[in-house]
């Protein structure tokens, strides 16, 4: 009988990455979630032939023997074979039943049952409550079905999440629907540098953008985000507005401002410090990269006032958000 203690195991950081969802489920799912509740029972005075017929009729491989509401034994196919072998098909069930019962509590995790199946070499486990009262039966088949059901539920939940996000623009009716994402970027915060862009890219993918579009927006906003981190006095703001047919992205800061915008746009020109360059940034390619990725770019800056960079990406009809054509038709990324 389980105590719940043995089933627990220490999950180290290293091992954690190797645990599959199925393994996780074997810890999450309780015996009570997967067991059969509607149990066919036998009485000790029934003949073995009747037990055999009951198992055959219900297509089960074993059943508990109950007397006065108490489970006193269990009959499995093996016991029936023994009875056939000894010509005991008309003998009472009590003569052939297994009385050494291995049971399991309903609140134990499924992994506990898997251990027991392996260790006790039994094919089914009566499931009992805290007082030993039988609540159901558990077979390996129950575990397989329960795990598959749980996996399917996971899958459906993810599908629903994706469906909801990608249909945002279809489900909400207005003259003009848009979704705005805002991020605050701190100056010299290299530790989090690029994080906002990663979030923006993921949001676009979730909204149903194809890989190519998400990548274009990602590259442009990443360069702009790094510019805020590298160059601004007090950081700045990223603002992304997503509409069904275009995406506007902007960064705004309040200084120091760019003295010569034309020079700043020249490839290779950079004011980044050696420290920043060592980190792989400040090569003077940022604005060029942005220009390459977006359909329209506008850079306005005034020394002392700050800088505003606007980027616009126009979505071709087949890539519009909320488009009703099947996903397969526009997944060219």
């Amino acid at each position: 009988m389980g105590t719940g203690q043995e089933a627990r195991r220490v999950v180290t950081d290293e091992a954690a990455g190797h645990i599959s969802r199925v393994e996780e489920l074997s810890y999450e799912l309780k015996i009570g979630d997967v067991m059969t509740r509607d149990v066919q029972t036998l009485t000790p005075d029934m003949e073995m032939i009747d037990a055999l017929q009951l198992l055959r009729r219900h297509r089960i491989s074993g059943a508990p023997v109950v007397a006065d509401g108490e489970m006193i034994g269990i009959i499995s196919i093996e016991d029936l074979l023994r009875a056939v072998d000894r010509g005991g098909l008309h003998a009472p069930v009590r003569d052939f039943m297994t009385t050494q019962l291995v049971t399991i509590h309903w609140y134990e995790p499924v992994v506990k049952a898997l251990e027991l199946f392996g260790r006790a070499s039994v094919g089914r486990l009566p499931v009992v409550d805290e007082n030993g009262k039988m609540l159901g039966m558990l077979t390996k088949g129950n575990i397989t079905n329960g795990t598959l059901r749980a996996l399917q539920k996971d899958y459906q939940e993810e599908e629903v999440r994706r469906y909801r996000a990608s249909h945002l623009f279809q489900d909400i009716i207005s003259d003009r629907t848009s979704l705005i994402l805002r991020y605050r970027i701190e100056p010299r915060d290299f530790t989090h540098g690029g994080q906002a862009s990663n979030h923006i890219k993921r949001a676009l993918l979730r909204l149903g953008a194809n890989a190519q579009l998400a990548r274009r927006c990602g590259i442009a906003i990443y360069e702009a985000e790094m510019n805020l981190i590298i160059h601004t006095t007090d950081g700045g703001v990223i603002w992304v507005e997503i509409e069904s047919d275009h995406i506007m992205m902007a960064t705004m800061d309040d200084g120091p401002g760019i003295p010569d915008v034309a020079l700043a746009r020249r490839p290779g020109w950079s004011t980044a410090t050696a420290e920043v360059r060592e980190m792989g940034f400040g090569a003077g390619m940022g604005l060029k990269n942005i220009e390459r990725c977006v359909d329209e770019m506008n850079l306005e800056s005034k020394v002392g006032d700050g800088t505003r960079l606007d980027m616009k990406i126009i979505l071709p009809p087949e890539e519009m958000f909320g488009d009703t054509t099947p996903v397969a038709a526009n997944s060219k990324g």
Partner: protein
Amino acid sequence: MRLEEVVTLISGKVLTDASDLQAEIAGGCGADLMSDVLASAQPHAVLLTGLCNPQVVRTAQIADVAAIVFVRDKRPTPDVIELANMEGIPLITSPYGTFELCGRLYQAGLPSLEQRIAHEGGE
């Protein structure tokens, strides 16, 4: 070429957990400037780099890089590895330098995924 083969060719050590070594690597690119990666790396490339900061992983996520190889036994800090685990981007360290790494992979048939960029003016 599968990531597993890449790791063998470069005597690499995988630093991330549960990395899919059967993942298909379309080609390679080498860069220490993140803008270069964003500008030139085509999707599903293995990136060879000497940089070990979190931005390498974030840049890789943006540029759809399939795996990152650190040259000359460089190793990122645990927080960078954790970030890569979260983003599902395998990190590999190799004892070889960039030139040798490129040579080994190219010779084994891994194509370049470095897109040529037309520079306007300048340079």
